[in-house]
């Protein structure tokens, strides 16, 4: 499909071994970033908040990109997130229908930006999961679960097939019906 802005990475890291602690605990995180460099940075950001370790006294052991296993089937994704608004921090649960998790996450970021004016740095994804259609909570996603779904496309704007054929003025009023 179209190139995703957000890629899912698995980052594995630990604190550097010291004389007192020969084998420090290894931590693994799955996070979303636009590229690997940013993923590693985000990893340290989160790890700093959870454990007493920083990038200067830690090491990243592995970073791998995680790809979607079945990009040709539609799934319902539930995303739990924590975001910072102008007045404080809030939790949220949102549902999206998409073929891939990266697509759903991208939908989430654009929706948060448009509905709540929250930008990428202020959003932390707590958890994502594929939700079985019986367990979906939002009516917006549940309405597409009908197996005999059928609706007409109202208001069809006729577009030129390439942007080169676009014109500012038209000779006659376009027919929007079909």
């Amino acid at each position, binding site marked *: 499909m179209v190139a995703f802005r957000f890629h899912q990475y698995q980052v594995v890291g630990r604190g550097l071994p010291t004389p007192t602690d020969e084998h420090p605990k290894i931590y693994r995180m799955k996070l979303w970033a636009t590229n690997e460099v940013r993923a590693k940075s985000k990893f340290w950001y989160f790890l700093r908040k959870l454990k007493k370790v920083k990038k200067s006294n830690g090491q990243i052991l592995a970073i791998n990109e995680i790809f979607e296993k079945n990009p040709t089937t539609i799934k319902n994704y539930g995303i739990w997130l924590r975001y910072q608004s102008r007045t404080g921090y809030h939790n949220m649960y949102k549902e999206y229908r998409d073929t891939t998790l990266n697509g759903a996450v991208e939908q989430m970021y654009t929706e948060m930006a448009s509905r709540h004016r929250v930008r990428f740095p202020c959003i932390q994804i707590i958890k994502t999961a594929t939700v079985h259609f019986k367990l979906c909570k939002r009516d917006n996603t549940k309405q*597409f679960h009908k197996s005999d779904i059928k609706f007409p496309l109202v208001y069809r704007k006729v577009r030129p097939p390439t942007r080169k054929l676009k014109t500012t003025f038209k000779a006659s009023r376009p027919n929007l019906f079909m």
Partner: protein
Amino acid sequence: MPFKRFVEIGRVALVNYGKDYGRLVVIVDVVDQNRALVDAPDMVRCQINFKRLSLTDIKIDIKRVPKKTTLIKAMEEADVKNKWENSSWGKKLIVQKRRASLNDFDRFKVMLAKIKRGGAIRQELAKLKKAAA
């Protein structure tokens, strides 16, 4: 005027924008309000925006997200290809494609044929005018 062409599973549509322009595809599932999962015998199943689709009158009988072989069999049974090529919309597209792919010699032949046809029409018209006068 009620609607006759619906977005439904099994509706055949024409892609009218983008990389797959001009391809006939079957709507295999609906992702959400704006996008559908779409499939054709010679391409990977992908999601596409409704804005890029023009719905046709043809509909085939399939369940949600069928396997590729099931889809191909259903398309054969419904005879989508022939129905499309015999419809006026499909015929127009074939003619457009043929006209776009003419070489100079072909265009010369078309010019001669047009002149001949025009001459035959004018002769008949002259005959009718003489009969009416």
